[in-house]
């Protein structure tokens, strides 16, 4: 069947737009992680740098946030998988008559807004705590405990859906066969049904962990003294971000891609093994034989390439020093700034000439005069408007005068929210006086 070439073109354009929409933000964010300006920017490209990764590694709050997220994630996974499995077993095996009612009740937490769950968790356990006469420091009021409990209320429902889907494909006859062959009910469950559920347990655990890791709505009410990563990120956005966030995003995206590729590779390997008639166990259990493993398995090839690329990047980052480039960029910026200052001075002169002709203009004057010196060190390409909100450029102007201060390594500085950051104000005002 021949296709109209026009349709093909449109299809291609559509696909490009569609994927740019889906993946564009991630790509842009990925680029900003390697660009040297201290406010996340993809363009203009200044210097290739890996410093944001070390900024990230040295950011105590982010690191603690990640640690808390992991603790909460693991706790939620364990609790949700157990509760979800129990719920699914009841739903599919035990109460066939109450199925619909029970289903509605158990699924409800997914439909309730996370905010409500968070508040109710907080209130409920607060009351519990008071009821039991425990102190405010008791574990019932502990942020980790509350967050795990709060997230589990709805994440266990996700897990239950995964298990129900799997259990619906379970042949009840297998349990009967096991009983018929003399197994007790416990043996039949352990030896026949549980192994059947292992893959679902894996999926449910991954799902639960991801849902827990990215949760904000519920956690924001329950985290107490243990902010998770999402909480920390949200707070950072309020107080100012720098590309170390992008660096974190790059790491997370890379891990996700690696995981997906690894999963795909294994699946294909098993599919190939079955197609070849060999027992899947013999293949999947085997050691790493690279060439054979790669044969006809695109996922494995891509995985290998990504791994090689990743290792190469890390090695390169060890050896690479962006200092030379930075000096160059600074030099360029300085030249551009000088030029700009000259232009502005020129304009100011002309204006004062005009004003002398027209009389004083009260409204324009104060707005314009303080900006040029502060704005001066910004990159030549960027618009003036954005720069008002970008004190990061001030830092660079600052760093230019005292290069060994390394202010760009300071995670708290140089952000769009920096307007609200008293430290930044001080710096710029200090600079203002020094100029």
């Amino acid at each position, binding site marked *: 069947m021949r296709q109209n070439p026009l349709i093909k073109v449109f299809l291609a354009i559509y696909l490009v737009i569609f994927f740019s929409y889906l993946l564009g933000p991630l790509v842009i964010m990925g680029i900003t992680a390697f660009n040297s300006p201290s406010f996340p920017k993809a363009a203009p490209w200044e210097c290739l740098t890996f410093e944001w990764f070390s900024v990230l590694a040295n950011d105590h709050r982010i690191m603690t946030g990640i640690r808390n997220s992991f603790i909460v994630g693991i706790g939620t996974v364990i609790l949700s998988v157990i509760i979800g499995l129990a719920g699914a077993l009841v739903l599919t095996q035990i109460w066939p008559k109450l199925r619909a009612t029970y289903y509605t009740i158990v699924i409800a937490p997914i439909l309730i807004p996370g905010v409500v769950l968070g508040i109710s968790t907080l209130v409920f356990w607060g009351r519990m705590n008071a009821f039991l006469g425990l102190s405010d420091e008791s574990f019932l009021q502990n942020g980790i405990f509350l967050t795990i409990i709060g997230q589990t209320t709805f994440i266990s429902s996700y897990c239950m859906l995964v298990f129900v889907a799997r259990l619906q494909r379970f*042949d009840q*006859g*297998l349990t*009967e*066969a*096991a*009983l*018929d*062959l*003399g*197994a*007790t009910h416990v*043996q039949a469950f352990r*030896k*026949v049904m549980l*192994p*059947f559920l292992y893959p679902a347990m894996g999926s449910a655990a991954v799902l639960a962990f991801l849902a827990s890791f990215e949760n904000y709505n519920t956690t924001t009410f329950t985290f107490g003294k243990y902010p998770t990563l999402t909480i920390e990120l949200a707070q950072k956005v309020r107080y100012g971000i720098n590309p170390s966030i992008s660096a974190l995003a790059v790491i997370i995206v890379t891990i996700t891609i690696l995981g997906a590729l690894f999963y795909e590779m294994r699946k294909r390997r098993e599919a190939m093994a*079955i197609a070849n*008639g060999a*027992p*899947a*166990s013999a293949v999947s259990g085997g050691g790493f034989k690279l060439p054979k493993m790669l044969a006809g398995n695109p996922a494995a090839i891509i995985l290998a390439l990504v791994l090689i690329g990743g290792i190469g990047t890390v090695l390169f980052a060890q050896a690479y020093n962006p200092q030379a480039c930075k000096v160059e960029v600074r030099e360029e910026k300085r030249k551009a700034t000088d030029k700009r200052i000259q232009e502005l001075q020129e304009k100011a002169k002309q204006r004062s000439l005009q004003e002398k002709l027209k009389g004083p203009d009260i409204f324009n004057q104060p707005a314009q005069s303080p900006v040029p010196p502060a704005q001066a060190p910004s990159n030549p390409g960027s618009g003036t408007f954005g720069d008002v909100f970008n004190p990061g450029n001030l830092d660079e102007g600052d760093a230019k005068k005292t290069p060994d201060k390394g202010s760009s390594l300071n995670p708290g500085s140089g952000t769009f929210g920096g307007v609200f950051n008293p430290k930044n104000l001080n710096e710029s005002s200090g600079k203002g006086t020094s100029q």
Partner: protein
Amino acid sequence: MSTGVGVDLDDVWVKFGDFVAVREANVSIKGGEFFSFLGPSGCGKTTILRTVSGFQEPSQGEVRIGGTNMVGIGPNLRPTALIFQNLALFPLMPIWENITFSMEVRGASKGERRKRADELLELIALQGQGDKMVNELSGGQKQRVAIARALCAEPDVLLLDEPLSALDLKLRQHMRTELRAIQKQVGITFIYITHDQGEALTMSDNVAVMSAGVIDQIADGRTIYDDPASPFVASFVGENNVFSGKIKTITKDYAVVDTPAGDLRAKIGTAARGKLQKGNDAMAFVRPEALAIAAGRKGKDENRLTASIKTEEFEGQSYNIFLNQADGAEIKMSLVNQGQAYEHAPGSQMTLSCNADQAVVLPAGALASE
């Protein structure tokens, strides 16, 4: 052998709500017997088997295995092993673990289990394939693994629920012979379920024919075929022509039925002896192979029937002629192919003959709808 464990069903009823799946089943199966339940889909065969294996408690009546009442004894404690309609092999275990599952749950060591698995794999002609997974076997091999798994439990009674229904014809015939051979070899009681009458007749010592929850007849294959107890059995087991009408005259062993094809003198079925009277609605059954084209003078026990020809059909070893009786009921006649040429004009009348001893009279009743 032959001193195996018998199974008795004593007035067993199984009800699901208002629905009666099994009605008043009285069956006595001797130890070491190959016993079949035969009946159309949905007649309650599986339900009976589940009451024997313990998955279904009878609503009323008693199941005895080896003389012991089984009430309240769970399926894992009964001396039965069931081969499920869909086999129900454990997909995540290799073949040898499947086969020896019953030993595993009793706590047998791995060495013991491997040894027993090898013995049974040899019995089912799958030696050396114990490490394969279930999905790597063919349908017939799975079948044999299911049998080995059940045998490994060393049951006194092996229950088989249509185990061959998923197989193609060739394999089915092969497996029938093999099953029968295995049964002879191990000498335990087999209770076999099928809706394939050929299977039931070839393999079984005794057959119970069921229709809609009721057991119509229990007898050996030959009796079932030649002396059916009800119109349902007559029409369900093998092909049969039905000639219905009122009884014209009746003696102790024979009755004459006034059928649309003419008067038909037939032997009274054993089950109907003494239950028929002149004027009753009756049905006479004549097998297609018992009919012939009338020729020469009418013999003493011979019937002459007339019908109009509808179509003819050549089937290799036999040649079939389909005719209509005056009331439209169909007749099928099978003639052994002896190389003779037939050509009969559709619509023309034909006179058939059949012997009174090859026709059976029963009280009118429901036929198998097939």
